[in-house]
């Protein structure tokens, strides 16, 4: 097997006495969706933060595309191809949906230190951004300021922005949260198709989505990976059922 796109090696992070990440090792390979599930407060977001660079681990290392990226800043990691969405939507509220996505496009297409040419006259930038908005079904709302989008729409916008970065790996922190049934369903389909373009590390509580999407699942409890395997293995793992899924009714 080729080297993993992302591999975490005994990653550790503590907040005081709390071990939020406790010796976590896991891989994400080309073409797969690796789901990370676990109870609330298990340390999933903390893990995502460390991969993305907004938190620095206490120990262990993070390899991305064959390189150790531990010393890079958030922005540098993004430019290497690490795209992410946030658990709580994070957008530029005063910008329209379109301009939000354009910012992502701009960062993949050349420098942001260009001072003179108006972006709104840059067709290439606009078209590329529009395409991504269409991909997430938000093109009708392209000119609405992000602050005025509803909760669900903002989630869609986040996804569009992450995609526009043309990432080599996507870190998705609960992308389904706040989306209605319809939205969840179309997002599931969307991600299903996306896996062939870009591998995904998916944190999600919507089990229906996770079970239908994931190639592999790791279960995090109290910062430790207690199980890792295929959907079937995880479903039938008694520890996981107890700690996370609860008794089936």
């Amino acid at each position, binding site marked *: 097997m080729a080297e993993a796109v992302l591999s975490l090696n005994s990653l550790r992070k503590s*907040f005081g006495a709390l071990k939020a990440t406790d010796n976590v090792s896991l891989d994400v390979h080309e073409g797969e969706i690796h789901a990370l*599930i*676990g*109870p*609330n*407060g*298990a340390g999933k*977001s903390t893990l995502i933060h460390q991969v993305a660079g907004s938190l620095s681990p206490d120990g262990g290392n993070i390899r991305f595309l064959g390189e150790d990226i531990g010393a890079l800043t958030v922005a540098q990691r993004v430019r290497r191809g690490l795209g992410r969405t946030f*658990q*709580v939507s994070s957008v530029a509220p005063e910008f329209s949906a379109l301009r939000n996505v354009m910012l992502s496009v701009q960062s993949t297409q050349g420098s942001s230190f260009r001072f003179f040419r108006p972006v709104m006259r840059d067709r290439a930038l606009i078209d590329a951004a529009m395409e991504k908005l269409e991909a997430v079904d938000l093109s009708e709302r392209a000119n609405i300021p992000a602050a*005025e*989008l*509803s*909760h*669900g*729409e903002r989630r869609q916008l986040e996804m569009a922005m992450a995609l526009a970065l043309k990432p080599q790996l996507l870190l998705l922190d*609960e992308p389904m*949260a*706040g*989306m*209605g*049934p*319809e*939205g*969840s*369903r179309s997002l599931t389909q969307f991600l299903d198709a996306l896996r062939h373009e870009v591998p995904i590390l998916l944190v999600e*509580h919507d*089990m229906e989505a996770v079970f239908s999407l994931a190639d592999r699942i790791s279960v995090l409890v109290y910062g430790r990976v207690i199980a890792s395997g295929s959907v079937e293995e995880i479903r039938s793992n008694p520890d996981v059922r107890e*700690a*996370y*899924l*609860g008794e089936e009714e």
Partner: protein
Amino acid sequence: MMLLEIEGLQAFYGRSQALFSVNLSVDEGEVVALMGRNGMGKTTTIRSACKILPYRHGSVRFRGRDLGPLRSHRVARLGVGLVPEGRRCFPNLTVHENLVVAARPGEWTLERVNAMFPRLKERQRQSSSTLSGGEQQMLAIGRALMTNPKLLILDEATEGLAPVIRREIWSAVSQLKMAGQSILIVDKTLKELMKVADRCSILERGTSVWDGPPSDLNKDIQDRFLGV
């Protein structure tokens, strides 16, 4: 007399209209589910009912009292407890402080809330900004319960919660219902919602379009208004 009664409600964000005609009622002891696709105005309805967002036309009555002239804290003191979308815990307060900051005397005490969500007790000295998403949701529910509301409003009640906890929340909601608590609830998981709800009310582009018991909520309606 209905506990909460909304008639012909219209609301605006600046110049753009978000609600056109919303009719909604919650009776004493009833659990009502407010449904609709993304952006249809559920949150806006709730914000208007709490007087966080002033409304322009229509009326909102709580226990027979017109909420029109009241400010949001008066509404809350009449007995409306809100668990808002996005949780909105106070990040610069500890978990414990979040719970007690607006507490009003009644059945719900710190002990009961802690018993319901033991995890909050474990984290009581921690600043709420460092809680995990799920923990924050619990905190927001606990905080609303501590005000001992007559009507509990949950906007996106189980968003971001792990299945176990989600189940806990649903069982908590059923418990509350059993105890006679009136609840207005928004959530995206239809299955569980329909189990606890006495009545469903559906919004479509800021207008109430359907109202009835869950049993009447057939596939056709679900498809039309909820996109299931």
